[in-house]
């Protein structure tokens, strides 16, 4: 976990030289999210200054988009697709299993900080559901039986 000071240093280096026209705001916030795992109040302040926007405007953008988080979550973000196509092949049951396996309800991080479980809506893998995204990897045909092994592999990998 970075300290607040480290975070701001990272951020400043990320902002240096980045174009600050309005259309680049979202890409910059996405870069902040990727680098720091969140868009903190300090980040909002710095980005707002760089783009010559009010903090409220930047904060408004941060809170609108699901990918941008105000607080950091677990190391591995586990997203279970809850779209209709996955519903038709049992994603509701899968989600209940995921909650039971990880011991948290959707939208929460495990106490050890390893996993963050959440619902997502469609990864375009609708003929091979239920689909789970972990980090940047998409897993298809995930049954309640297959899920624990998938999570255990990540837990062991650290």
């Amino acid at each position, binding site marked *: 976990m970075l300290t607040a000071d480290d975070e701001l240093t990272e951020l400043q280096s990320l902002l240096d030289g980045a174009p600050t026209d*309005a*259309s*680049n*705001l*979202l*890409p910059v*916030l*996405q870069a902040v999210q990727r680098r720091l795992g969140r868009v903190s109040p300090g980040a909002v302040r710095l980005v707002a200054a760089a*783009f010559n926007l009010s903090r409220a405007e930047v904060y*408004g*953008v941060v809170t*609108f*988009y*699901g*990918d*941008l988080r105000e607080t950091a979550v677990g190391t591995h973000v586990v997203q279970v*697709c809850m*779209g*209709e*196509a*996955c*519903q*038709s*092949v049992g994603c509701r049951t899968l989600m209940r299993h995921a909650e039971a396996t990880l011991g948290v309800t959707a939208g929460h991080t495990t106490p050890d900080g390893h996993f963050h479980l959440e619902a*997502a*809506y*469609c*990864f*375009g*893998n*609708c*003929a*091979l*559901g239920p*689909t789970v*995204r972990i980090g*940047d990897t*998409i*897993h*298809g*045909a995930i049954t309640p039986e297959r899920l624990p092994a998938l999570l255990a592999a990540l837990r062991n990998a650290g």
Partner: protein
Amino acid sequence: MTRSIFVPNDTGARSIGADEVADAIAAQIAALGLDAAVVRNGSRGAYWLEPLVETDSQTGRVGFANIRPHQVAELFASGTLPTRDHPLSVGVISEIPWFRAQQRITFARAGVIDPLSLHDYRAHNGLVGLQRALTMSSQDIVREVMNAGLRGRGGAAFPAGIKWETVRNATASQKYIVCNADEGDSGTFADRLLMEADPFQLIEGMTIAALAVGATEGLIYLRSEYPYTEQTLRDALRLAREAGVLGPAVLGSSHTFDITLRIGAGSYICGEETALLESLEGKRGVVRAKPPLPALSGLFGKPTVVNNVLTLAAATDILATGSDAYAAAGVERSRGTLPFQLCGNVRRGGLVELPFGITVRDLLETFGGGTRSGRPAKAIQVGGPLGAYLPTTQWDTPLAYESMAAIGAMLGHGGVVVFDETVDMGEQAEFAMAFCAHESCGKCTPCRLGSTRGAEVIARLRRGEDSRKHWSLLEELCETMELGSLCALGGLTPMPVRSVMRHFAGDLLSSAPGHVLISEAT
């Protein structure tokens, strides 16, 4: 000559182990010292056969379906590349009925070529449309698209030619081509498949649109839920620039056009064109009131073509073979082909490109082969989360814009999701409202509040609380959302809800037999 063995580099195929299969094959080739190489093609969209490994043969490409990493050694048991006589072979791909019964135009190259080979793309009729467009006036390009009867494939089905003509006629210092690749509807994956299997087709289509309206800048707004697609598109754009397809002199002409890739940030509403434009401008993805139309005042207030991936892709074929050939397929005012995305609880799911007009039943039975679970199918949702749930009695409806509208349904982006008899349609109706509440941009009241209240009312109906009152309340709420919402999210969320009220009332109400409202509703 080095022979090729193909393993799809597609999200779906990779989600069930294609990368591991490709690695295992490469290891076998090395171990056996074969003169062969793994080619990562796109997927043909036959997800029921994935991972689908293919080799070249005298009679065409031979397939080996559902290959798992542990089966790779078996594929190479003879010490050579597998042939069609191999026990795991499914024969020549083009002879498989599921493929033969399709009419592939937009997806003709998908799965056949290496998606990142411009050489392959050209060898399979790529860039023919753009080359022809470069010899034509902008007016003639637009006329060709207009005559083809091409309608927006994103769901709204607005005539593409009219949109292009509006932008062409607008006077401005800058015009934009924006590709809506925010394919958020559950049950749809055609945009993703095309961008992963044949990305140059999208680039060519956007460039044709640019020539037609006089734009020099293009943007692709891709959803962040497609991380593999992002990589393919970035590579394709770089290769297109290096080859001079994009840049200051498009294919050596005097035209300038380049494309920037932008990634969404997890918001469904940004698939709505005006919210998408707001997002590209670095703002919250809040829907704009129309007018002004984006065609006149779009991105940064400039005339902008906003088209779906498949609309832009279809333009390449229309320009290459002419509008007459394209318009020859289809029914009524639904011309050309539509890639149906057959999925959910279905045995043979995947992308089925056909002329408009096939019936839902034909699609389910001929292509889908029934449900994956083996239980009877109960409902089919067509057109994404905002589309109607069709009961068995409506499955003989042809899949075309007009015929679907006539039964209170819509075709949307061509998603067809099958549910078996275990589905609780009351839960589906409640989900439709809850999803709208989750994704509403919040600008207009009918959508913002209506969806939340809608989910609450449906929950009460399902619990059997004061059914008569809540049923009529829900009807009123649906009407308010339909008539009063600013965009299609609020306006169409009632469609799946109403379809459940109309056809599955028993699921929606508490299950007391002979409930008075069931007879009232039918």
